[in-house]
């Protein structure tokens, strides 16, 4: 589950928009696997939970970043159209 969450985070662009959270999630996932091999299942569970929540946070930040960028692009396009519309028409 934590691995799926991290794959989703990578898919939505977390490497760009939330690199820190993505790195935490990856490190915690690796540590969880190592700790699990050593037999400390409680600590492994805690690390998996932390990896999961960091992946979710990375996904949320990525979606916010992408949406804000889209808003900026759209606002600029609208401003161009408005200025084109405000320009005086060619006189015959």
């Amino acid at each position, binding site marked *: 589950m934590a691995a799926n969450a991290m794959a989703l985070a990578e898919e939505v662009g977390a490497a760009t928009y939330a690199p820190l959270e993505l790195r935490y999630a990856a490190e915690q996932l690796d540590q969880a696997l190592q700790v699990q091999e050593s037999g400390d299942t409680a600590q492994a569970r805690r690390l998996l939970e932390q990896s999961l*929540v960091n992946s979710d946070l990375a996904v949320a930040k990525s979606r916010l970043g992408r949406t*804000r960028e889209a808003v900026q692009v759209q606002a600029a396009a609208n401003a161009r*159209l408005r200025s084109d519309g405000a320009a005086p028409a060619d006189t015959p």
Partner: protein
Amino acid sequence: MSRALLVVLALLLAACGSAPRRDLDYDRLHASLDALAADPELARLALAERALAEAAVRRLDASSINANEHVQLSYLAERRVDIAYIAAQTERERARLEALQREHASLLLDASRRETAAMRAELDRQRQRELLRQEDAQRGALISPPASVTAGPAVAVPPPSTAPAPSPPPAATIAPLTSAPVASASDADAERTSVPAPGAVAPTPAVTGATVAPAESGASTLAQRLAALVPEYGADGRQMTLEDLVFEPGTATFAAEAPIGIARVAAWLAAEPTLGVRIAGHTDATGSPEANRNLSLRRAEAVRDALVERGVAPSRIAVTGEGAAVPVASNDDAAGRARNRRVVVRLGGGA
């Protein structure tokens, strides 16, 4: 004494038992969630993420027994609260994006409408030009005179030697000014043949055939007609008439072929350097009288300026703008209107 001590101890124990537990992490996260719920913009957004955050904070509230578990739950709850905030902000941005996309569609629609209107206007202008060309062709067909009228023999005012030829137009045959129906004293028969007496039945300038002499074909070009421009007798004496196509439609700007006709008029006037010149602009009856007077005056002035450039003394020239007041044909049809739009240059008037 021991009883009093026991009472004090009991009171202390009771005080410890009823004191509120202080968990700073819980308090901070709980307050943060309360602030999110009270935010007027974000309160109604991302409710699922907020519910997850509230659940995480509640688990933190119940985890005071195990310190390790408390740290873990605090870590998770803090990030769930962050996620709730970010998700709410994302939804708000999405709503803003949707509004911008709707506005974009509206702006595109407006731009499309403007483009359509501009195209329609351009098509109207082209249609208008085509209509004017058709009127020109119809008028050319109407005013094409019989060859016998234009080929009047031995009319000789002014003499060819005194009338410098204008620069020849492309593919246009230049008629000599001597073919004008202004008769010499020695050729009265010819004068009677080609020049009607004032007050005669059909002496309108455009119909006499004296103004335009295409001869071979009614569908002659403007350049050909201007190259064949000759003087005629009008009600007020000798005159030359420039047709409306000498100007761009609705303006006092000369068409490309106009210099051909202007040169013909200038040559004619040069042969009579002592006489005054009266230039009258005329329009058809379309549009307001004021606009028509203005346009006719500006066209007359444009002709005057062009003649002055070709050496005609400005002191000889008087200009008037008659508007639609002096029609030579009916304004009810295109051909008549085209004939009414003209500039007449008369000899014998002047400033």
